[in-house]
């Protein structure tokens, strides 16, 4: 058994879901995503037992492209994140009715397939294919099942699609250039390259453009808020929970080791960009009227911090980044789900039209509050572990980075609590708010359990990712 099993399960799942018909689709999708989760857990066990779970097969001989899936700790951690979030996301959508559900759930599974592939691929071109493949389902999900005015939605989604596609074209160029140098797309061969500083600079920049748009880092974020707002919540969860992490993961896996000299030389600029994103995102989030948009900007702030940590090129920075990625993945899915739960009852995302929910639905309030607190990195949640590590690594580079990045804990608290106050507290709302259903409660409970458990005991994840991060650092520091 190797990692391709997960991919196969997800791909078969996607088709099976499509052919199972609208009524069964959601359940079949859930089943397959759970199977993928189970499979990845088994693989994790095998990996921990020292078994080789990677695959390398020759695919195209000329040019030399291999079907290479390499699972190290980092990749596995991200795969687990995907595998864990996908069932939650699918399950969370059970309260909604979708037209043409078979296509909808099929696309979700297909997207999970592509994203898992991105996390596993260790051949440049294969990686690129998965990377772009992941874009297609979310495009359709956002376009067809999104909300709001169809014309505006189309505009936002097409912008997102073209923007990210354009960004990744630069990455493709970089890969082709690297291929001409190395004669192979395999990551090991690419790692061995010794490029001049000039070449590295351009490669670094090309990768950066692709990832900065995907992550997004300011000023490349303009697609984000609109798409998050327009996409159906499931799409938003997929985007913010997993797809953003594709960009961040790729920074660690591809960008930094392939252009280490450039990374070292320009790291301050990119850390500064990331931190600018933190402050900017937090400040913009303060005055958002739309709940999903607010969460989108908070996401911008958080990933800015993660990106900044990645560019520190220290073990702490990378480790913090990965921890925070996972934590953020869970918390942001939870928060968007909360927005969806409110939407199901109030049919609005406008914060001004909410309020007084706490008086009617204490259970939901508690869950939402925990998620809000996790999002602002209250100690004892997983996010704190990540954020502490991240900020610590930044403080090792320059204390000002930590101070400026740390404003997220102030501004974050400000906008999140302000949002919480206006959404949940206050006089009882005239509109009735039914308490969470069992299904919704389960989704929340799973997310909260994960956040709290790893908040106190992050060691399993740390142990999993540390060796592979050390390998990456070795590549970075080989000269």
């Amino acid at each position, binding site marked *: 058994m190797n990692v391709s099993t997960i991919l196969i399960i997800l791909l078969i799942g996607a088709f099976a879901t499509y052919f199972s018909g609208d009524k069964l689709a959601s359940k079949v999708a859930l089943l397959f995503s759970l199977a993928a989760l189970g499979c990845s857990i088994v693989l994790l066990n095998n990996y921990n037992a020292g078994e080789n779970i990677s695959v390398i097969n020759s695919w195209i001989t000329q040019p030399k492209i291999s079907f290479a899936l390499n699972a190290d700790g980092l990749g596995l951690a991200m795969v687990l994140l995907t595998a864990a979030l996908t069932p939650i996301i699918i399950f969370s959508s059970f309260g909604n009715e979708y037209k043409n559900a078979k296509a909808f759930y099929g696309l979700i599974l297909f997207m999970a397939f592509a994203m898992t592939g991105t996390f596993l691929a260790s051949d440049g071109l294969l990686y690129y294919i998965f990377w772009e493949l992941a874009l297609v389902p979310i495009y359709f999900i956002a376009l067809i099942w999104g909300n709001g005015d169809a014309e505006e939605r189309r505009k936002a989604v097409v912008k997102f699609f073209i923007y990210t596609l354009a960004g990744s074209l630069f990455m493709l160029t970089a890969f082709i250039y690297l291929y001409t140098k190395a004669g192979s797309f395999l990551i090991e061969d690419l790692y061995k390259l010794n490029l001049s500083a000039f070449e590295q600079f351009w490669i670094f920049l090309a990768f950066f453009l692709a990832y900065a748009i995907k992550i997004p880092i300011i*000023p490349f974020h303009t697609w984000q808020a609109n798409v998050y707002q327009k996409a159906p919540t499931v799409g938003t969860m997929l985007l913010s929970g997993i797809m953003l992490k594709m960009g961040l993961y790729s920074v660690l896996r591809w960008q930094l080791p392939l252009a280490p000299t450039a990374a070292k030389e320009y790291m301050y600029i990119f850390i500064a960009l990331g931190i600018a994103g933190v402050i*900017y995102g937090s400040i913009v989030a303060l005055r958002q009227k739309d709940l999903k948009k607010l969460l989108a900007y908070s996401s911008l702030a958080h990933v800015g911090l993660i990106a900044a940590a990645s560019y520190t090129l220290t073990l702490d920075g990378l480790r913090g980044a990965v921890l925070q990625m996972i934590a953020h993945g869970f918390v942001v899915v939870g928060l968007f789900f909360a927005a969806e739960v409110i939407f199901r009852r109030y049919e609005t995302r406008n914060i001004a039209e909410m309020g007084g929910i706490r008086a009617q639905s204490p259970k939901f309030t508690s869950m939402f509050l925990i998620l809000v607190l996790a999002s602002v990195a209250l100690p004892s949640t997983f996010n704190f572990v990540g954020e502490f590590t991240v900020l610590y690594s930044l403080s090792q580079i320059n204390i000002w980075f*930590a101070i400026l990045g740390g404003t997220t804990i102030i501004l974050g608290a400000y906008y999140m609590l302000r949002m919480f*106050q206006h959404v949940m507290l*206050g006089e009882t709302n005239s509109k009735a708010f039914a308490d969470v259903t069992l299904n919704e409660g389960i989704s929340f409970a799973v997310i909260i359990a994960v956040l709290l458990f790893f908040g*106190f005991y992050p060691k399993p994840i740390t142990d999993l990712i540390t060796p592979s991060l050390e390998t990456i650092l070795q590549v970075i520091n080989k000269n």
Partner: protein
Amino acid sequence: MDTNLALILVLTPLLGFLVNVFFGKSLGKTASGAIGTVAVAISFVVSLLLFNQITSTGKGIQVTLFDWIQISNLKINLGFLLDQLSVLWLLFVTGIGSLIHLYSISYMHDDENMHKFFAYLNLFVFFMITLVIGSNLLVLFIGWEGVGLCSYLLIGFWHKNQDYNDAAKKAFIMNRIGDLGLLIGMFIIGSMFSTLDYATLKTAITGATNLNLPLLSLAALCLFIGACGKSAQIPLYTWLPDAMAGPTPVSALIHAATMVTAGIFMVTRLNFVFDLAHDVQNVIAIIGAITSLVAATIGLVQTDIKKVLAYSTVSQLGLMFLALGFGAYEVAVFHVITHAFFKACLFLGSGSVIHGLHGEQDMRNMGGLRKAMPITFWTMLISSLAISGVPFFSGFFSKDEILLTAFHHSIPLYVVGSVASIMTAFYMFRLMFLTFFKEFRGTEEQKHHLHESGSLITIPLIILAILATFGGLISLPGNSWLNHYLAPLFTKVAGEEHHLGTTEYTLMGVAVLGGLLGILIAYIKYFKQDNFPESDENITGLSKVLYNKYYVDEVYDAVFVQPINSLSKFFRDYIETGLSALVFGLGKVTNEIAFQGKRLQSGSIGLYLFVFVLGMCAIISYIFLAQ
């Protein structure tokens, strides 16, 4: 055994929290209150056991549970340190906590969400215990932020009122500003010494030869900013008066007795760091003195009974920091303890008054309650005497120690502290006179319902009043049990005890006279002359400035909050749209080029052919003629 004890200590309140959260509603009000109280009481008993053990062995207990966060040069355990300081703190946290829980059973009985109230209180105690017994700074930080969270939850307990929610939010955010300072301080210390563990840190610092003192001072300053946030010092004090929006037991427990002293606990805990940073110590002393004075002046004119107490708390905390600034940690700790007794008593007393008046908090509408509420009156009187520094009550000893220390280090700060003390005496007795003497000024209906509160409320009051009276005995001048008890914590030769000489007696006399003077002025003004505070519109001049708290909230709002909000608006309306337009601009340019190109495609075949011929000519010429 120790591990189990520690776990029982910590987890019982957590268990109480969980039970109350999940089953509180079905259990009923009394049961949930009882569960909450018992949970804290068990912790108190455990604390007593631990105290017993510590006093007999004299050694701290270190408990390590498991690895928590791994950072390359730091390994942070989730562990507990039970030594003299933490156990002392535990005693009054759980002790007063139990009393206040008991009090709350009656006080909150009319509230529909009583089980939640107890859940939050229990959660608070859990986090407070974590804060106190954490073996390293990061575990302290769990508690530190956790108590901030509970404070947020409890200030906004009546969540339907958005003003209360604003107050809660404000408290949380101001605390977070301090928390950032604390985090940065931790980062500096962590990178300097590769540890956040108190014990290791202490050996590292005391053993180190060439320390980077400026950096260490910076760390100390950052830590102090954290303490400022939690313990409501200038410039981060404005949340505490607003926090009075919460139910009165909360004000007593969190915003008077325990949470706000966390800053003092942290500074005391890290005394070895602060001892090396003299500049920072001076800053602490000055800020403490200024805070005590500013808060006291504001307290002079407040009319809300809880606001008076809140500013008095800020002022007293300022005094404690004054002591900390001089390195007199044991003195500060002493005042923390006595203050916890009398201020909790005062708050609970005011709660009793408010309870009796069905929510009335304005002193202008009180008066003459002495007869209706004798127990409340007497206990509050005792506490007021204690806080005013009347001899032989507990406050007298602790405050006197602080002023004595200040006198030895800096005369100006001593003067500031003394003036603040005189003011304290004045406004406390102003409160007493306005509330309990003269005729009742409220409505007839309130008058009709006036009654002494029930025994669940009065018993904690009586116990606290007794403690407020005799609490000073633990550190009598010249023969201080507390100093000996705490001695192992401090690097300095502990207890450079003030030998009671002429100076000391003179100072004591001055302090007593000052206190009596304050009481006298209050007596003349509010008892003899029959003054009572004007209604809001008629307040003029300096008192208006004071009544409006020096307009600090307004200034903060104008200087920090509004700019950030308008910046946010600006970003949202201009930068965001601008950036978006930039990206769309690229698309538009492409579109425009395509549009122009489209016009080139006129559909006129003649033109196409013409261009085609021209192009062919060019190509042929290039191929055949260019060489």
